[in-house]
């Protein structure tokens, strides 16, 4: 634990001494604003909730979160600083979790910056703030899963751009596999258990459940197991690739 906090702190600072954290937050705010108000018809719906915001968030996450994760390990391997880090008596798992947590905190800060939406909806109507809070929790968990995927893929390559693209594709795949479009396409030749299996793998299925304000332990467990699985995979990837 003694080595965990310094690594975490350094990682967190590194997001803020480079423009990454600011650009990420700006993009998230601008794009979520556009999608909520223009594409999501926030005003025309005449409903006091943040549904349009939470509807667009997964897609924005898939596009934007890999930018936070792409440098996590790829740059360390590219510059060789991984050799420094791994020889400081810091455990691999410790470093993986510290780096992930730093990125997760940045995403939490970015999410927190969308607070004017909450104020707006409270000003205009009487929303169920419990549901909104639940939606934010779901968003943060979803962000964590995307970051864990991105972190794992960044451990597999030295090129941050490749890490970004592969992570984006994989995140999108995890989103798309729950959409009706894909499930309808599969319905022709896959049996029902398979369809359910594919749908239950999707981020969207579990995200939407939580966003409706239903704190289903299954959904929570899904996200937590996503996190744990990807972080474990990252540890293995770092161990395998660090000296290559």
């Amino acid at each position: 634990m003694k080595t965990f906090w310094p690594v975490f702190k350094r990682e967190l600072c590194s997001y803020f001494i480079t423009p990454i954290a600011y650009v990420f937050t700006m993009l998230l705010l601008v794009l979520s604003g556009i999608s909520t108000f223009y594409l999501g018809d926030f005003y025309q719906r005449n409903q006091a909730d943040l549904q349009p915001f939470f509807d667009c968030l997964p897609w924005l996450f898939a596009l934007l979160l890999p930018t936070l994760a792409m440098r996590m390990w790829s740059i360390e391997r590219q510059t060789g600083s991984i050799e420094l880090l791994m020889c400081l008596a810091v455990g691999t798992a410790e470093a993986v979790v510290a780096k992930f947590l730093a990125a997760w905190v940045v995403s939490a800060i970015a999410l927190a910056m969308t607070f004017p939406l909450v104020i707006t909806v409270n000003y205009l109507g009487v929303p169920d703030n419990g549901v909104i809070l639940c939606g934010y929790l779901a968003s943060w968990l979803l962000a964590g899963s995307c970051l864990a995927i991105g972190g794992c893929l960044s451990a597999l390559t030295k090129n941050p751009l490749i890490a970004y693209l592969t992570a984006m594709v994989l995140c999108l795949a995890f989103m798309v596999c729950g959409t009706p479009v894909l499930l309808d396409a599969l319905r022709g030749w896959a049996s029902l258990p398979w369809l359910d299996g594919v749908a239950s793998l999707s981020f969207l299925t579990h995200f939407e459940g939580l966003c409706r304000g239903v704190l289903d332990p299954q959904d929570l467990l899904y996200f937590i197991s996503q996190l744990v699985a990807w972080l474990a995979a990252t540890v293995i990837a770092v161990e395998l690739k660090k000296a290559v």
Partner: protein
Amino acid sequence: MLGPNGAGKSTTLRMLAGFISPTSGTANLCGFDIRRQSRHAQRLIGYVSETGACYNEMSVVSFLDFIAQVRGLRGGDKKSRVTAMLEQFELMEVRGQTINTLSKGFQRRIGLAQAILHDPMILILDEPTDGLDPNQKHRVREQIKDLARDKIVIISTHILEEVTALCSRVLVMDKGRLLVDGTPLELESRSRYHQAVTLYPRQPLDMMTLGMLPGVAGIEAGPELHSVRVLARTGVVILPAINSLILSRGWDVPRQEVERGSLGEVFRLLTREQHA
């Protein structure tokens, strides 16, 4: 640790530093097994990798602060150690600068500073003077010499002058195998030029008598015109015999030199044998 490129020097050092673990066998550092107790061993080690990479986007002082924290230093201890490092490696005036804006010489010194910040018993430096200009090389060597007074310093290099300048023990390796383990002097004595005497005479010498002297292994042309190099048999000092011969014959030899033996020659000999 000496060896041609690709000999396995860096791999060996990386294993000692705990960056990679050996596929078979192990090593013991101050009582800690590098496989089973690698974290303990790592606490005793300061390591600078071949690239010497630091976190380049950080400033010098925040980077050293980070290292100090990871090494478990807190509060006043941390502050005084970091300041001591900044002073020892003359980094005071650049302490607020971002590392990647500094020259390679500075970056090397930052690397050394981070490695000894926690006052380790063992210092492992992988090609510490690689890519530096002659002045910077000299400086880094002086600093390594200083550090070697109270620490075990293991360096890898393929620069031979570094061995004679710095080392008290040499390991020559090639293709992953240890070829020689000895002092630089022992290594030099493997050279056929070790204890050879080069004569610069003003007149032709009687090569037959010279060749018949006890301990003489052979005679060959020296580096200059008319000069003669008399080779010694292994472990024999032939200078006195040659001197008395010169005296008794009344030869006019204004200059003579005893050779130490060329490390380069031994190095080539050892590593070429391997490749043949």
